[in-house]
């Protein structure tokens, strides 16, 4: 990930007493994956037939900072699009996670119980949060594509 490389670079530089340009803005480097769908509340969805894998985006984890706890739903719980199904806790902030699709939870990433930092280290792969069996696949049409989501993040950052 671009941002963790940057962090490493600045940290290494500080140990090595090299001066780095302080104007680097880490947040501009968040990555977005082409084949995923995105919600405006910063979750991603990977669709495979009627199953959907859900996590939070690189942009979201970057803004949250070090994730220290993930509250997961139970397998079998039902989800509706736009409603909260869990929470991500960072050192200072609590953020609800909203389901980008409706359906039933068929899997949760238990590894997050012991390693919540996977959300930071690998937001699109090992940091996935739940798998849902979708009840209405058409709902994914309401979500953003990667280009639209990148633009959405830029606009949101500019506002703040």
């Amino acid at each position, binding site marked *: 990930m671009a941002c963790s490389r940057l*962090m490493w670079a*600045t*940290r290494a*530089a*500080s140990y090595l*007493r090299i*001066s780095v340009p*302080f*104007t*680097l*803005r*880490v947040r501009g480097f968040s990555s977005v994956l082409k084949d995923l769908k995105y919600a405006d*509340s*910063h*979750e991603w969805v990977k669709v495979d037939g009627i199953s959907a894998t859900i996590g*939070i985006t690189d942009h*979201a984890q970057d*803004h*949250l*900072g*070090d994730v*220290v*706890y993930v*509250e997961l739903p139970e397998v079998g719980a039902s989800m509706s699009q736009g409603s909260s199904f869990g*929470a*991500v*806790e*960072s*050192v*200072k*902030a*609590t*953020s*609800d*996670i*909203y389901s980008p699709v409706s359906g039933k939870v068929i899997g949760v990433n238990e590894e997050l119980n012991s390693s919540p930092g996977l959300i930071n280290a690998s937001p699109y792969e090992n940091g996935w949060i739940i798998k849902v069996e979708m009840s209405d696949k058409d709902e994914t049409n309401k979500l953003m594509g990667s280009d639209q989501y990148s633009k959405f993040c830029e606009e949101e950052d500019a506002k*703040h």
Partner: protein
Amino acid sequence: MRGGLWQLGQSMTRRLAQADKKTVARRYFSAEAELKKTVLYDFHVANGGKMVPFAGWGMPIQYKDSIMDSTLNCRQNGSLFDVSHMCGLSLKGKDCIPFLEKLVIADVAGLAPGAGTLTVFTNEKGGAIDDSVITKVKDDHIYLVVNAGCRDKDLAHIEEHMKAFKAKGGDVSWHIHDERSLLALQGPLAAPTLQHLTKEDLSKFYFGEFRMLDINGVHCFLTRTGYTGEDGFEISVPSENALDLAKAILEKSEGKIRLTGLGARDSLRLEAGLCLYGNDMEQHVTPVEAGLTWAIGKRRRAEGGFLGAEVILKQLESGPPVRRVGFFSSGPPPRSHSEIQDDKGKGIGEVTSGGFSPCLKKNIAMGYVKSGSHKAGTKVKIVIRGKAYDGVVTKMPFVPTKYYKPS
């Protein structure tokens, strides 16, 4: 994730209820235009500072280091904080000590010249108006720093009492140090780094002490104090010299002392068991309930003579109804307003600050419980989003403090 990090600034003072989000967002935007800026504002932005509204000021909540890394670096190396939003104040005049003693719980008269202490401004009911670090510069000069968020009410309170005091012939006046900026330099490298910038010997200058001296060639007020639990200083510097001083400190530390924002400052003070006014201490909370009985001078316990003394002295005698305590807990980190229950599920209090400790790698919190449930080792439940998690009452500070005291 709605809100996401944008809540961070808000969560410093209060966790938002879901339902309030729209209102808060509006307030946030309307307030942003009028936010005050410290003289270091552009320096923060140029260094990657993420600026958020805090007590009417635009302040850096973090820079490009994460809050976790910043917190750890403060304890390992050092941190430089811009705390110019806080309000420095001098009280002068031959009666400034008897005047101040009417408003605070400290034995100000008993302080040696150049010595200071944490104190509390109380109201008639014994509740806390604010907490403040006060210093007796000399018998006719007191220097103090009050919280940014309490500035207006504190100044109004002091002014009202000052008018009455002067009307009776008392000699006291004030000067608000708006011409100065305040930097907090904290951590094990604070003293060696600052020593490069002054000729005065800092090895004989101890925790709580105050001195006026030249730093980086400029006349500064230096207090050996802080809000992290580490050794360190607060440096009041003329505003036109603040930027040069900040740069000199960072340079002399060879990059090891890092600019640090309010996010890590909150983690650090929580680990050190220190109160955040507005969260852990409020108008209705007495210093005894807040665990600051040690700050009530011996003479003051005997004589009273400060606002709310009757309530406070009575609590000293018969014990307070509630007490501030620390907790370790499992599950998600507790936040302010999480309910505290006894092991049978009965409500006994509320969390006032909480989070994940970057140094201890576990949840820490402080809050108020009924007396009787306050002893270290008492098992409790902490309710977060409807679920009860195990917690235990714990002594504070959570991380040992390293104040520089004579050995």
